[in-house]
């Protein structure tokens, strides 16, 4: 079988294989756009498309959120010699859905002396911030809601907005633990945003663009983590650390720190409002993981090795969406692995880590990368 495939792909006369057409979602989206135009005016077409995309993203959001909660519980259970959820459905896969219903039906307890408006607003800010960031992420070729030419900047800016929600939640809860948690979270995100930005800049230098689709396309002949020598690898590690910190996950979960602050900024929330915070945490994890996958690991690009034509051909056969999800979940698994292994840092150590270690390393790294790009030493 294999020699035939090799012969097929190497022959220049052959047109693009059928799956390459199917895996390219741009034709599908263009077709939908064109057929909608036939029926409606351009204004209503845009409105309809926005609605469709909104609903799709909402569905995706819920599914990913629920799945990630389940995955986290299973992963941590297996690391801790436990089974994890195993009662609701086979292997407990409906556990999170049951939890969702429980959270939906729970009472929303009003807090006395809390700032009511801000208290209710905070979960929405958190969830909207993570919701907006999803729009710019390319899931497969031609499968993204909007392809901004400053995509990376947009995702970073929007996902960092969530901290406002966290600060509001801590402030308005009228709870001392919540306030400490919120203040910690503020200090943490402000500092770690710097590292996230700088480590991405390292790659932007290499790619020469901030548009996510261009960055992905530039990795057709090799992922940036391999192309960019050691600086790209260091940038990847720094990005992993600082994005874990930015999403308030262990070992950087100081804002929640359940052994110190009971639950930090969302101590006073219950029911669906708590679910919003909970879901946003997991979606934020998904977003940073997908940025890591897109920027460092080639997004939806399959894994290619130099001149192994047959191997590359088989890799091409796997749909890009699967590649993308696989890479994202690899990064998410890494983050879960961190969380369930390490003890928590202290707030001053957290800031020391950022300002004394990550930031200098990052700055040097950017310089080296710029030098490499200038000299043309990268692959």
């Amino acid at each position, binding site marked *: 079988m294999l020699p035939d495939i090799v012969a097929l792909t190497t022959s220049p006369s052959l047109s693009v294989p059928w799956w390459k057409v199917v895996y390219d979602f741009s034709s599908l989206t263009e077709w939908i756009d064109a057929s909608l135009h036939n029926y409606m005016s351009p204004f209503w077409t845009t409105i309809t498309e926005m609605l469709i995309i909104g609903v799709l993203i909402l569905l995706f959001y819920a599914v990913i959120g629920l799945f990630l909660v389940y995955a986290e519980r299973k992963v941590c259970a297996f690391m801790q010699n436990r089974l994890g959820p195993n009662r609701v459905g086979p292997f407990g896969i409906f556990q999170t859905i049951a939890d969702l219903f429980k959270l939906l039906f729970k009472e929303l307890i009003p807090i006395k002396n809390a700032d009511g408006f801000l208290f209710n607003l905070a979960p929405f800010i958190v969830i909207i911030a993570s919701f907006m960031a999803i729009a710019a992420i390319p899931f497969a070729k031609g499968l993204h809601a909007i392809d901004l030419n400053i995509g990376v900047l947009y995702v970073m800016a929007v996902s960092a907005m969530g901290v406002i929600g966290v600060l509001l939640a801590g402030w308005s809860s009228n709870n001392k633990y919540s306030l*400490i948690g919120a203040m910690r979270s503020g200090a943490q995100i402000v500092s770690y945003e710097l590292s996230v930005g700088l480590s991405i800049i390292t790659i932007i230098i290499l790619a020469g663009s901030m548009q996510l689709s261009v960055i992905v396309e530039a990795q057709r002949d090799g992922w940036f983590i391999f192309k960019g020598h050691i600086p790209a690898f260091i940038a990847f590690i720094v990005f992993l650390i600082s994005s874990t910190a930015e999403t308030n996950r*262990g070992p950087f979960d100081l804002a929640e720190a359940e052994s110190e602050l009971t639950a930090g900024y969302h101590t006073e929330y219950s029911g669906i409002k708590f679910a919003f915070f909970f879901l946003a945490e997991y979606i934020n994890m998904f977003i940073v993981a997908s940025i890591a996958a897109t920027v460092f690991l080639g997004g939806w690009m399959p894994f290619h090795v130099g001149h192994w034509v047959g191997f590359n051909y088989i890799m091409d056969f796997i749909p890009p969406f699967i590649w993308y999800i696989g890479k994202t979940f690899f990064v998410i698994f890494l983050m879960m692995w961190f969380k369930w292994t390490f003890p928590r840092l202290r707030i001053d150590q957290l800031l020391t880590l950022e300002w004394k270690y990550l930031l200098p390393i990052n700055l040097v790294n950017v310089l080296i990368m710029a030098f490499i790009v200038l000299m043309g030493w990268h692959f």
Partner: protein
Amino acid sequence: MEEKEIITTPDEEQEYVINMGPQHPSTHGVLRLLVSLKGEKVKSIQPHVGYIHSGIEKMCESITYPQIIHLTDRMDYISAHINNEAVCLNVEKALEIDIPDRIKVIRTIMSELTRLQSHQLWWACFGMDLGGLTCFFYGLRDREKILDIFEETCGGRMIVSYNCPGGLMYDIHPNFQKRVKDFIKYFRKILPEYDQLLTGNVIFHERSRGIGKLTKEDAISFGVTGPTGRASGFSCDVRKHEPYSAYDRVQFKEILHTEGDTFARYIARIDEMWESMNIIEQLIDNIPEGPFAVKMKPVIKLPEGEYYQRVETARGELGVYIISDGNKNPYRVKFRSPNFSNLSVLNHIASGFKIADLVAIGGSLDLIIPDIDR
């Protein structure tokens, strides 16, 4: 709308006071700490105890000596066996009964197993306090194996009630020796994993080194005993100083460290686990033959006088002070519990550090609240 209450106090009195406990994940029970903060820094700590004060000392005055055992089980429920041993030794000393070697050896093995499982639980909880949740499950997983040994021989898992004045309630189970040996073999392999997971971890080092320093002088003055005191260089191991049961016939080191910080307290306990395994290994193959209990009178009456017995529990020195007036009930029983003194040092060593450090220090003191409240 309701008028909101505005508290006006002079500037120096406006402290940020948070209430840690009685229901707080890291106070391990119903300890309440009033912590005044300055930012993240702890200014002072006021412990409030008594939430599960059960009046054990008062209850002891109206029950007989064998019945006291079931109350001491519930004092420091993690090292229940050692508490029972203290009362039994005291009663036996007062009655001047010679205890056969078999009982002594079995008691020692049981005490060391208790110490081992207590330290495992402490390690589990300490890891959890510092945010490493996985430690909790590994610690409890291994502790279950010891509890199984207890259950097979004593019928209870934590509240063993295995000692009684004059010996033991039952003989050891036929499987006991094999199970203990299997466990030691297993745990010798597992304990290095604890080190890899937590002891060597750079984050853990940062969190524990130099945190909550307790000098030797303060440790003695505050009466801080057990691994906590020994981490400060205070040689207070009752097993060495006043050997009871079979401790005079085994070789073991008294773990002494001089740093006195959280890390030293941690290492002291990890080392004690190794020592406990050594002690058990020395004894488990040479349990002498003999009766498992001395025949006692149906009603035990202590001669008039005062009796004091010290034992080394997993947390420090437990003293049982019995004043007898010749009746079948004690006139007064006082338990000098190790946790009570260990708690009193908390304000001294934790003020000036951060909240996260307070949690770490509290975890390293290994407080069991029923033992404080009694």
